């Protein structure tokens, strides 16, 4: 059988998490709001209104462009994309066409062994063909052969980002979205929740005989709203195209719709003649001027990116890739880890173990934000140091995590307050020993009669009373002293 490879390009629409819309001062997020409540004359395209650009949209767009290694244009323009649709109140979408915010760019996408056909990890170089700012349209839904429209989403800021046809498998497409989502959250520019359409993805899929370089007619898959669904839909479409070609049929440039419920692709209405959007410069807006000063300001706190940090963690802290991957999955967690390592000063792998086993569970179970936890990196480091110093044992240390988180007190203070430290104070242990002996006259008598192996039993009693915190060798010595004392 012929060996085929898939050629996949992804068109993503990223909803930026600004407070307000891109061209008016309405609230951007309407997820929980009734229809037509976050609207104003501007986003509803009333006669006579004009758009005014939101600064934060440009700033977030620049962060993304930089992260994708794209070249940021010092002067970029808005254009009108003209078409009729009831969710597009002005009859045109304000977008960017030929002189957009950024040009070029790429992402070196690590493909883990698990997502690799031959179970060998590798890197896929994905080029970025388009990166521009645009406004979202409203929402429509069909009910009783009528179309219901809600303008709340009109004017929500989007970045459209389109890859080259560089992806080769459904898994690579999924990995791209996973990394993109991670990056968007890392940069704090989008919630990137596909279920809420903060991150939308259309996939262009074609196949060719492996080794060929030409591009064959592609289909476009729309309406996919989870990463798993993207993977699934692309895999199905690749299979379908191979079947078609094997059967001697041609692939036609269809638009396909993913039906989540049945897990099948359905053909959408065939595209009418290729739409002519009659793009032209938006005369109501001036170009975006990203002079050096503004760019510098935006990029002043540009963070180390997740893939860079992941590599550094492996290198600098000797972490296994697995640990590094998890610890860089999210920026706040990653910062938390690194701050703990610094505060602790000991073995970074030990910090990783505590974090991944215990702290992460707390975070996940309780829905905590690492940045706002009472169990701060310093507190976690202190607990680790207390265990290292033998002040508390490991179990106590782990129990302390939740206590610190709940109370906000310093671990040392809790240890002191609740007496959780290993007790090495002579008089405290002596009192407990005396009590144990007083409660067990028969055993004392037996010991004194020569059954000295009972010493272990007495020590156990003391440890039980002290809930494990006593220094066992000291207790043993005191017990022996007391038992022998009475004899002498």
């Amino acid at each position, binding site marked *: 059988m012929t060996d085929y490879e898939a050629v996949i390009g992804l068109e993503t629409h990223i909803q930026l998490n600004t407070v307000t819309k891109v061209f008016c001062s309405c609230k951007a997020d309407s997820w929980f709001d009734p229809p037509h409540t976050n609207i104003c004359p501007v986003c509803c395209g*009333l*006669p*006579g209104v004009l758009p*005014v650009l939101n600064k934060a949209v440009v700033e977030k767009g620049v962060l993304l462009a930089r992260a994708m290694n794209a070249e940021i244009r010092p002067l970029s323009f808005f254009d009108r994309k003209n078409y009729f649709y*009831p969710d597009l109140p002005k009859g045109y979408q304000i977008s960017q066409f030929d002189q957009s915010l950024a040009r070029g760019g790429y992402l070196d996408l690590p493909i883990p062994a698990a997502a690799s056909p031959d179970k060998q990890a590798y890197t896929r170089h994905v080029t970025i063909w388009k990166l521009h700012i645009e406004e979202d349209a409203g929402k429509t839904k069909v009910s009783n052969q009528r179309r219901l429209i809600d303008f709340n989403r009109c004017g929500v800021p989007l970045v459209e980002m389109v890859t080259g046809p560089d992806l080769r498998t459904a898994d690579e497409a999924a990995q791209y979205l996973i990394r993109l989502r991670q990056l968007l959250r890392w940069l704090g520019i989008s919630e990137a929740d596909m279920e809420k359409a903060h991150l939308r993805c259309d996939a262009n899929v074609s196949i060719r005989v492996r080794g060929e370089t030409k591009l064959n007619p592609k289909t476009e898959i729309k309406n996919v709203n989870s990463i798993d669904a993207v993977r699934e839909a692309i895999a199905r479409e690749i299979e379908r195209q191979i079947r078609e070609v094997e059967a001697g049929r041609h692939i036609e440039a269809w638009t396909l719709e993913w039906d989540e419920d049945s897990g099948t692709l359905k053909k959408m209405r065939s595209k009418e003649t290729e739409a*002519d959007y*009659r793009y*032209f410069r938006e*005369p*109501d807006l001036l170009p975006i001027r990203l002079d050096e000063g503004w760019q510098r300001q935006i990029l002043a706190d540009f963070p180390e990116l997740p893939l860079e940090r992941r590599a550094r963690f492996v290198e600098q802290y000797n972490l296994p890739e697995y640990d590094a991957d998890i610890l860089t999955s999210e920026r706040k967690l990653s910062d938390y880890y690194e701050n703990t390592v610094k505060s602790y000063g000991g073995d970074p792998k030990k910090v990783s173990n505590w974090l991944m086993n215990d702290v992460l569970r707390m975070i996940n179970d309780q829905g905590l934000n690492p940045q706002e936890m009472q169990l701060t990196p310093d507190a976690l480091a202190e607990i680790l140091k207390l265990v290292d110093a033998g002040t508390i044992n490991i179990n106590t240390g782990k129990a302390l995590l939740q206590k610190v988180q709940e109370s906000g007190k310093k671990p040392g203070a809790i240890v002191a307050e609740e007496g959780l430290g290993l007790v090495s104070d002579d008089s405290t242990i002596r009192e407990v020993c005396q009590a144990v002996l007083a409660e067990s006259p028969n055993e004392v008598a037996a010991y004194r009669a020569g059954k000295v192996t009972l010493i272990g039993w007495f020590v156990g009693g003391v440890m039980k009373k002290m809930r494990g915190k006593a220094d066992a060798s000291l207790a043993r010595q005191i017990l022996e002293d007391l038992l022998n004392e009475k004899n002498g």
Partner: protein
Amino acid sequence: MEICDLNALELARLVRSRQTSAVEVVKSCLERVAQVDGRPGSLEQMPLSDEDKKRVHAFITLTGENALQQAEKVDQMLAAGEDPGVLAGVPFTVKDIFCVQDTLTTAASKILANFTAPYTATPVQRMQDAGAILLGKVNLDEFTYGSSNESSAYQPSPRNPWNTDRVPGGSSGGSAASVAAGEAPLSLGTDTAGSIRQPAAFCGVVGVKPTYGRVSRYGLIAFASSLDCPGPVARDVKDAAAMLGVIAGSDERDATAARLAVPDYLEGIEEGVKGLRIGLSPDYFRITYPDPVSGELLSQPLPEEVARAVTEAAEKLSAMGADIVEGVPMPNTRFGIPAYFVISRVEAASNLHRYDGVKYGLRSEAPTADLKEMYKITRNQGFGPQPKLRILMGMYVSAAQYSEQYYRRALQVRTLIRQDFEAIFDPAGAYRLDALLTPTTPTTAFKMASLYGDSVLMQYADQLTVPANHAGVPGISLPAGLDNEGLPIGIQLLGADYAEKTLFRAARAYEMTTQEEDWRKQKPEVLRGRS
């Protein structure tokens, strides 16, 4: 002379000094409207009566009740010692292309027939904040698309107060007619290719097209967004200057409104023209247009009367000390209309996309289960022929395969036109002009129905005004006599970016030196026989 015939600054002075009241002023204007305006423009088709043919028909919506209430407020403020603003008690009309809250805003189109604006346009708001009183919304060509006002869906369309068989010009015909007929001393118009200056010239009043971006476009229903300029229509230069001072300035709702302080346009306005360099260009003394049949370019000189008004004005300015510079080349003037045909259509077609029957305005009552069908029926019923023409032409010249040939080229030609102006106003250049003096229009007001229907010839009426729109520079049209039929002739002064103050100074000098001329004493036909 009645109160309503006084100019705006005089009215404001009388009201502020409480020699008359704002209510009296408004009443006087409303009386004038009742006397001369006839029935307002309406969507109902009614044949024109002989009576109708003698009236001005400036208004679509008269807001008399509201105006009286506003006037009372102004009077109360004055009684309480408060300052209602520099235009306290001055009535003004607004071209019905601006949104005014809770008022019908029609754009003279059926497609917006039932639209009530939920907000007020910035320049209108600024007038009201300065104490001016909105008298009503006046007629215009549908969506401002025209030079005669005849394309309004609201008929009868306005008629020229100097001769009601003539058009008032357009598209701000209602504005110019209402000011000329003494219905209001001021009107807010818009100028995309000459739509303030041309009707001002036809109606014998002053019209100003400010520098693009000098006045906010927020609330102005867009025609060609890169060319549209709101501006004043007034009976004299000082009133126009005062009004521009009120409406100009940056606006957080319009990104293209220039961030530049607004000067006091009245300050030094009567200092005269001594030392000003004023140019005359041969390129503004002929018009060039294509033969309607062959498409061959024809060129002809302007009517002698029009040309003479300009040269005589130059002589008078010279006599007052201005340096007149003749032979100033403006070689790209004649490309203004072809470039305008392209740029304005592309922008207009896009700006008209939003009228689709979905969220406001007209929706066809014809039952249909098909969205596209609804769009088509609605737009066919709602738009008159002028918007349809502009939409179709816009579609054609901006289609992907033609946009290079037409649209891009037109934007390059706009650069050439701009360069003409930059060269003559360059303080280090060969001409170093302060203003260019030209005729405003190739002809005086033409007869109703004489051009309407021929979209090409109609457009060429704007040949002398449209270059300023391409270049963004300011221009003012002011009356400069009457032709042998007693129709007003307008002359135009064009200036460098944001040089309105210089234009006002030169225009005011001309106005002062001609104050006692006979033609100044003539009244528009509709006002004759009044004391």
